[in-house]
């Protein structure tokens, strides 16, 4: 049990450093078709495109706030127990980990004969995890209730994770040379979800009256909901075998929308905005929810005279807790809303090309350079997260486009990213890398990359 505590504490602390699912390099990088996944109203100019199956878009983003691996495991001669204690007590319940991973299996698009509408569609797999630092739980696991009067709050226990397949189709209409708008319809197929977002209740030990200590469980309300993983209360042993079916319309389904627009008041200024994943998943298959509610106060076994020997008085305490803290397991359906993300940008283009013939778009930006600012927000269970990005884009030559970004958010002020998009005839290879100046993985706050391959016409 204590080994579990130890592993739990170390694992939690390793990930206590927040980050976002922000893709500042890829956003509005219109040379890459995957930009439509971030803004369905992006001003793309392709006739059609098709991604290399399973390799058109791979992205992984991971990071934590306020903690680096080196904080705990640095080879600095300081006792690791000292470092661990400092970390446990210095972190806050708002610190969290948020991992996002996506793999596009299919991504394609084609411009309709009206020359205005670009239809794009595909399928991708997505894994999400957000887990807040359960500070009170960590402290209890670390030192117990040795500090009489310390209150442990169950509210800090909060996490959500899911694995979904997303089938999508979107339309991007160019209304005129100044204005594009688009929307994307998504069908979510969730293979699995586990979440525990609404916990409350206090546990504390105080000086007793009839005995030395009084232990109080006050207004305990704990719950964990899962879907896709359990048949009743037994883990579905065929989960992995059925995973591909579950990801592709075979399990709990939901719907969602992305919306986006691009406005260019003149040929040098561009404004964009988008919102992703306004939707929900209804969980009705293989749903298991467990909960515990109630209050209980004890000062141990209080014997009543005449004292009768042989009775299991300690078991009466356990029975009392089980009667007062009512546990329940239910299998009813529930709805989980997706995590919406909002992007917006303002860009100014300048610097006409001298003589080179660039990639042939329908209404390509003739300027070689662009600077601008991007805003990003994601609605997390506790609070929205906001990031601001300054960027510089340059069309290096007909083969290579680059974008350099500098992102500031609540957690990092040193995130420099670089995006590269190579175009060799109709073949496109792109990649974006965040936090370039972090020269040590273990000493960094944020690590993310996206890359993929497409054929673009």
């Amino acid at each position, binding site marked *: *049990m*204590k*080994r579990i*505590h*130890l592993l739990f*504490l*170390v694992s939690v602390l390793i990930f206590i450093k927040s980050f976002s699912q922000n893709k500042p390099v890829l956003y509005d990088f219109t040379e890459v078709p995957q930009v439509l996944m971030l803004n369905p109203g992006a001003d793309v100019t392709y006739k059609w495109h098709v991604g290399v199956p399973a390799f058109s878009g791979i992205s992984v983003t991971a990071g934590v706030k306020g903690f680096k691996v*080196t904080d*705990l*495991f*640095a*080879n600095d001669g300081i*006792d*690791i*127990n000292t470092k*661990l204690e400092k970390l446990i007590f210095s972190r806050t319940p708002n610190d969290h980990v948020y991992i996002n991973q996506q793999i596009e299996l299919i991504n394609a698009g084609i411009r309709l004969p009206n020359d205005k509408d670009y239809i794009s569609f595909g399928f991708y797999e997505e894994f999400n995890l957000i887990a807040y630092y359960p500070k009170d739980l960590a402290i209890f*696991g*670390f*030192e*117990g*209730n*040795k500090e009489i009067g310390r209150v442990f709050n169950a509210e800090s226990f909060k996490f959500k994770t899911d694995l979904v397949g997303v089938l999508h189709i979107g339309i991007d209409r160019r209304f005129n040379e100044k204005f594009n708008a688009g929307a994307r319809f998504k069908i979510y197929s969730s293979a699995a979800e586990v979440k525990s977002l609404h916990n409350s209740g206090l546990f504390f*030990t105080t000086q*007793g009256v*009839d*005995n*030395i*200590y009084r*232990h109080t469980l006050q207004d305990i309300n704990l719950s964990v909901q899962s879907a896709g993983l359990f048949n009743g209360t037994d883990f579905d042993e065929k989960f992995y075998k059925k995973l591909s079916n579950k990801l592709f319309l075979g399990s709990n389904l939901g719907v969602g929308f992305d919306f986006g627009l691009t406005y260019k008041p003149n040929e040098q200024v561009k404004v964009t905005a988008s919102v992703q994943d306004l939707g929900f998943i209804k969980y009705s298959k293989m749903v298991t929810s467990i909960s515990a509610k109630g209050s209980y106060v*004890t*000062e*141990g*076994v*209080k*014997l*009543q*005279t*005449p*004292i*009768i*020997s*042989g*009775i*299991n*008085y*300690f*078991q009466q305490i*356990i029975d009392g807790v089980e009667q007062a803290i009512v546990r329940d397991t239910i299998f009813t359906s529930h709805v989980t809303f997706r995590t919406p993300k909002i992007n917006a940008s303002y860009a100014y283009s300048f610097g006409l090309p001298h003589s080179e013939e660039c990639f042939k778009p329908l209404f390509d930006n003739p300027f070689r350079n662009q600077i601008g600012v991007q805003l990003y927000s994601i609605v997390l269970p506790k609070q929205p997260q906001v990031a601001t990005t300054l960027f510089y884009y340059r069309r290096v030559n007909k083969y290579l486009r680059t974008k350099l970004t500098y992102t500031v958010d609540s957690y990092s002020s040193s995130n420099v990213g*670089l995006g590269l998009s190579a175009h060799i005839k109709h073949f496109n290879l792109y990649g974006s*890398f965040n936090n*370039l*100046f*972090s*020269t*040590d*993985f*273990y*000493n*960094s706050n944020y*690590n993310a990359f996206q890359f993929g391959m497409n054929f673009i016409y």
Partner: protein
Amino acid sequence: MKPLKKLTATSLVLLLMLTSCVKNDNVDFTQVDQINLNQQIKGSMISFTTTIADFGDANNLPFVGFDFNTPIEAFSNATVQNELVKLTFHFDFENTFNRDFLFAFNFLDANGLVVYSTPVTVTKNGLTNKDVIIEGLTIAQIKNTKQVGINVTVLNSIPANTVDNTVGAFVRFKLGATFDFSASPQASASLIDLTASLPDLTNFEGGNLPFTHFDFSTPLDIFNNATIQNNLVKAEFHFEIENTFNRDFELVFEFLNSNNQVTYTIPILINKTSKTIKDVLIEGTELVNLKKSKKVNITADVINATTIDNTQGAFINFKSSATFSF
């Protein structure tokens, strides 16, 4: 951009990208082996208030004793078994009788045998607070507890075994405990602790001299545990034997599997009138075999003699412990 500048910029970018990778020089993940969690759990256990009616007979006098016990499962808990390193009992009495009492707190195993007992003298007309700390070898004993009992006797009363009949007198009793746990990838535990004197040794052979052989066998459940089976990488046994007899002995530990085949043997030569310390390290293939053990057989033989000396007061004190590394 000039070619040289392009080359420089490209090189810089590539350098940044390539160096943004894993550097192991600055971190040492083996430090995790040094993590030691020391959790402390405080809890109330038993409380009661007794009056003269509870202590006396129908006429309240004389004192007829007080004996109480109740089962307790706390010591069977795996965490307690594996990680409890220190236990502190906090006794708190308020006694308004004009008598001293002796409260004996007994910890009994599944057979009702006392594995640990701590007496507390409760002084008359006053408050008594006492902390009893249990650690070391005694912790191993108390982990066998299946029930706790309280036995109360009156002290220094005249006439004997009577309580005063002070109206409204009472004894208010509170018992709390502090459990100190220690979790680290290394766990130590006491094993066998015994002291054998001349009658004990001769009794092994029916109470007659000469002593020729001692044979003792006991089941061994410690290896029947998933954590041990999956994670144990090293086992160290520590033996301390004090021998005041004028004889050498050979003590042999034979670990046996379920088919009574020997999985590991530890022979210990005990020199006469001396203290013997022996450490045994078991890992690798030997550890794999040891994990199959279901029983341990202990034998002792006199060396270089056929009889044991009859030195009065002579004894063999044997202590053993094990440290498991995961």
